[in-house]
């Protein structure tokens, strides 16, 4: 877990720096979180935020408040309510909150807002975005290397540009490793339900495996558990997403594309506590260790030294700019 140790050192540094600044700042910190509609126990994105916040609470003793919205009007309501009650920083999870953050941040210029997965240009808003295409590229490369049939699959959740960005990065990685490889792509659906339909996810994975795929990557929230299960049941390999899902089906999950929302959350709160919180855009890619692939005891046997070195050199090339991973959302097109 190189990513984690690296970040831990980073945080340790930040923590030491905090000791030198006065404790007065820390005493008043009242962080709050407004989750997206998926809810805080979605086993992926929102839950990652919760984990980050819980780690923060554990390490610093500072409690946080959170709220799960049930409809669009509540985004603004919840943000405003937290701001009014003196909470800061207020973390808005998910791109759907952008409009609400923009509006409420204007009303409360002295409150710090952080939004994950979208960009809001306000002097008191920090925007955290991830380069999912880079992480997906690397797991695509690993998938192609692990595949014996030369066919791999992708199961997305809801058909939105963000998920096509995952898919596009993945396809680029697969083709980079094996230009002749075939990639089957399916989206689970077009509504929010597509994030929580593991049965359909499993069926899509099965149909891809029937056509010869032997590695299937999912970017589908709770639906993806069905994808990983189907791959494991068929003796094939799955690839997890967002958090480390290798342990769900040990030995049957090749790796997981990590999107470190937990670290982003932790860092935001920590920075706020240390007085180091800054507005502006933070793009977290491979270079910033915001995305990456998971390596642990569960998939040690699956990642051969050859695969590992290929992945590492691809990572290095992406960071150095030698490989340019196309971002689907830049032009709504995928070159592959």
């Amino acid at each position, binding site marked *: 877990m190189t990513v984690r140790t690296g970040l831990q050192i980073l945080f340790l540094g930040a923590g030491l720096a905090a000791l030198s600044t006065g404790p007065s700042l820390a005493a008043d910190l009242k962080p709050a979180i407004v989750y997206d509609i998926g809810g805080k126990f979605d086993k992926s994105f929102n839950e990652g935020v919760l984990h980050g916040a819980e780690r923060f609470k554990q390490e610093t003793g500072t409690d946080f408040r959170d709220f799960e919205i*049930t409809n669009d009007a509540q985004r603004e309501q919840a943000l405003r309510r937290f701001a009014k009650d003196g909470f800061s920083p207020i973390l808005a999870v998910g791109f759907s909150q952008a409009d609400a953050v923009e509006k409420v941040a204007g*009303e409360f210029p002295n409150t710090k807002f952080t939004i994950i997965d*979208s960009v809001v240009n306000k002097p008191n808003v920090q925007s955290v975005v991830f380069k999912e295409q880079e992480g997906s590229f690397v797991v695509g490369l690993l998938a192609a290397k692990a595949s014996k049939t030369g066919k791999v699959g992708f199961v997305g959740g809801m058909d939105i540009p963000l998920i096509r960005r995952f898919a596009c990065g993945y396809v680029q990685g697969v083709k980079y490793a094996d230009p002749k490889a075939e990639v089957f792509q399916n989206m689970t659906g*077009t509504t*929010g339900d597509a994030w929580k339909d593991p049965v359909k996810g499993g069926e899509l994975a099965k149909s891809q495996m029937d056509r010869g795929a032997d590695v299937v990557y999912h970017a589908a929230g709770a639906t993806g558990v069905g994808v990983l299960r189907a791959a494991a049941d068929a003796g094939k390999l799955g690839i997890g997403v967002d958090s480390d899902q290798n342990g769900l089906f040990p030995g049957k999950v090749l790796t997981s594309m990590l999107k470190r929302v937990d670290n982003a959350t932790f860092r935001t709160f920590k920075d706020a506590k240390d007085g180091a919180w800054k507005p502006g855009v933070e793009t977290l890619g491979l270079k910033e260790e915001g995305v990456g692939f998971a390596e642990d005891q569960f998939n040690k046997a699956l990642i051969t030294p050859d695969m590992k070195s290929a992945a590492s050199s691809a990572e290095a090339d992406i960071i150095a700019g030698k490989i340019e991973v196309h971002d689907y959302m830049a032009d709504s097109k995928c070159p592959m």
Partner: protein
Amino acid sequence: MSAPFAIPRWADLVLVPVLSVVTAFIVAALVVLAIGVDPWAATVSMVQGSLGSAEGIGFTLYYATDFIFTGLAVALAFQAGLFNIGAEGQAYMGGLGAALVCLHGTALPSWLLIPLGIVGAAVFGGVWAYVPGLLQAKRGSHIVITTIMFNWLATTLMAYLLVNTLREPTSMQPGSSRFVEGAALPTMRAMLGAVGISTAETPLNVAFLLALACAALVWVFVWRTRTGYEIRTVGRNPVAALYGGIAPSRIIVLTMALSGALAAGVAVNEIMGVQHRLLLEFTAGYGFVGIAVALMGRAHPVGVVLASILFGILYQGGAELAFDQPKITRDMIVVIQGLVVLFAGALEGLFRRPLALAFAGFGASRRDRPAKPATLPAPEPSE
């Protein structure tokens, strides 16, 4: 009324719903108690959150606006004996109509653009209900099945359009670009501000008044016009209606189209009033709540408005409750709302029999009179 459990009209309209709601709250209180929260504190936080401040009232009435529209849609169809499950999809499509007008009519002045947007919503919502109505009237395809199917069609179509066609190229969110300023409905805050009253910032807008006007219009239409009479006749007995010279198929199609247009009011409130852009799944289940609202409001506009306000209280109070009591998650709120729907909608017969028995004992002497005179009197004009 010669129903087996006859109760006075006032009891039917007031006592039964009140008893149902009170029972629902008692059961909900037990559930709240079971997870370790003081039910009294929860009730206070719910009532204060929804009615205790200008902001709370604003949100309550904003939710109520959606429920009035969908409740009226379902209630109107009820009057014609139709069970319109499709208010959700009709409202969703109404959003498309409103958005197309607002996105393309940017050069129009506000006083023209807003009414056109409302008409756009009504037309799209109406057409989305017209087709199932037509299928029911001409082919006998059951309206419950077709409207459910049309909900799915609306979801799929809208997702396609919002992801592929209407989405702003730079935006991640599947939604249309923002409407021009002139397309925004005046908010209640701005309107009250114009007459010197300052209130809190809430999503409540002029669509609430439109909803109340629709409720009044539905009442006039159903109970005071010739077509309304035909609708009620078809609802009671289509065969008799046919015999009386009313074409049920025409009434079915017409009622469904109007029902869909009413449901589209949700789009006026949400899209033109609050979000100012078309969003994925902006209907958020309000169409389905409309069914419960119509059931609880006994398919009468006054009942629908009252039930809508109750559901507004549940929604807004529920959000405040989740805020004040971290132990109560949003799923708990759904449980409480579900209990109200269960008791007020599905189990309202629960109190009818005991009440009927009570009233039978109470007013036995009055009811001993013969229901009908032995000989028919001279024909009188019907009331």
